[in-house]
């Protein structure tokens, strides 16, 4: 099928974009379009007004400020996966970005688009929750900073308002916490059946952030044990607090497997 009729506006500055959003309460933002356009092609989504933000300069940059890694909302997934600074400062994020869709999708899809679309099986929202990122949301009223851990409210639902634009994401430098990432998908590039990020602190503290198993990122704090049996029990205890959707028993099993795999990667320092 083909998209329904819409009117198209291209913005070249954040100021102009937020002004447009204010004036178009039904308007929808188009960034990389790798989730929105398939929905429009099948007319599951029929926005009447689109604001293309891909022409806004300076939103595709990576920088380091005050010990934080700052990422623009328009960074393409492939650029995130390959960026030297990202690979150094947050290797687990670069690794996760390389698992988003396929190469051609990653060349077009944007960080901000994925974070705001909030597909429960997407890697990047969960990565931001694990990395304790803060999102910069800009509207005509000003700038609002929201921690990723407060941003995700449920299936495809976030704290962003219609008049807001996600412009930047900032990630604190690692405080010695090791991160690991693992996911299981039926075919490379498919949405994961289950995936997770783990944090392993310098003591036994840590956390697991699962994705793909429920309505959004699920972060649970955990005390890690070096004993595999004890660790399996601790993982299970946390997993049992998550309300798993679809194919519950199987997904539950895969979620356990990825948690252990991600833990091992974190401990071995290979993201």
């Amino acid at each position, binding site marked *: *099928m*083909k*998209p*329904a*009729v*819409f*009117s*198209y506006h291209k913005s070249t500055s954040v100021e102009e974009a937020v002004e447009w959003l204010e004036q178009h309460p039904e308007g929808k933002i*188009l960034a990389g*379009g*790798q989730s929105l*356009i*398939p929905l*429009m*092609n*099948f007319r599951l989504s029929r926005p*009447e007004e*689109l604001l*293309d933000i*891909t022409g806004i300069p300076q939103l595709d940059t990576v920088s380091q400020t005050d010990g934080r890694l700052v990422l623009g909302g328009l960074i393409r997934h*492939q650029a995130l996966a390959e960026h030297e600074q990202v690979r150094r400062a947050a290797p687990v994020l670069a690794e996760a970005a390389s698992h988003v*869709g*396929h*190469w*051609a*999708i990653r*060349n*077009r899809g944007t960080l901000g688009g994925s974070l705001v679309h909030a597909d429960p099986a997407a890697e990047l929202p969960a990565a931001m929750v694990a990395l304790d990122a803060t999102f910069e949301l800009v509207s005509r009223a000003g700038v609002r900073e929201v921690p990723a851990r407060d941003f995700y409210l449920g299936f495809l639902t976030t704290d962003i308002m219609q008049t807001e634009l996600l412009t930047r994401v900032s990630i604190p430098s690692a405080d010695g916490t090791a991160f690991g990432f693992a996911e299981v998908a039926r*075919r*490379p*590039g498919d949405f994961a059946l289950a995936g997770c990020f783990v944090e392993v602190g310098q003591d036994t503290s840590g956390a697991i952030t699962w994705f793909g198993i429920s309505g959004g990122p699920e972060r649970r704090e955990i005390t890690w044990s070096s004993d595999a049996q004890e660790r399996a029990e601790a993982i299970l205890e946390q997993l049992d607090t998550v309300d798993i959707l679809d194919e519950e028993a199987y997904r539950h099993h895969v979620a356990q497997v990825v948690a252990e795999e991600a833990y091992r990667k974190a401990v071995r320092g290979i993201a």
Partner: protein
Amino acid sequence: MNELTTVEKVTITLRVNGEERAVSVEPRWLLSDVLRHELGLVGTHVSCEQGVCGSCTVLMDGQPTRSCLQFAIQAAGSDIVTIEGVTHGEGLTPLQRAFAEHHALQCGFCTPGMVLTAQALLDKDPNPDEESIREALSGNICRCTGYQSIVDAVMAAARTTQSRVEED
């Protein structure tokens, strides 16, 4: 706005296969459809229209992208290469020759997307290992399932290009 509203077309300029092309488009027209129906470049195939199959893959500023997952109006000012543009003039590229020699196509529907993706990979990394080739092509579906022959062809093309570079 309803379905009967007259839609105003916008004239945009695309650089396609090295040539500036002015075309009048509705904002909702996909790049894949504009390439095929307005510019007659029917080598860009269209199948799933949801980014899964890879048959509509074109190179945009050198990078493989799905032409069915972008509006033509967004591509204004970009440099696009379709399968018609991979050869300069007559003949086949070493990669296309390798596809022919290694039986890397049966029905041919996926071939333009496969060739463009593989070409972009070879441009980025002239000597990829098998795993990188498989990873790069994982976004292109071949329903004749001739994947091994396709991987063989890309590896052979890489070797040909490499030996030529070494000779120079």
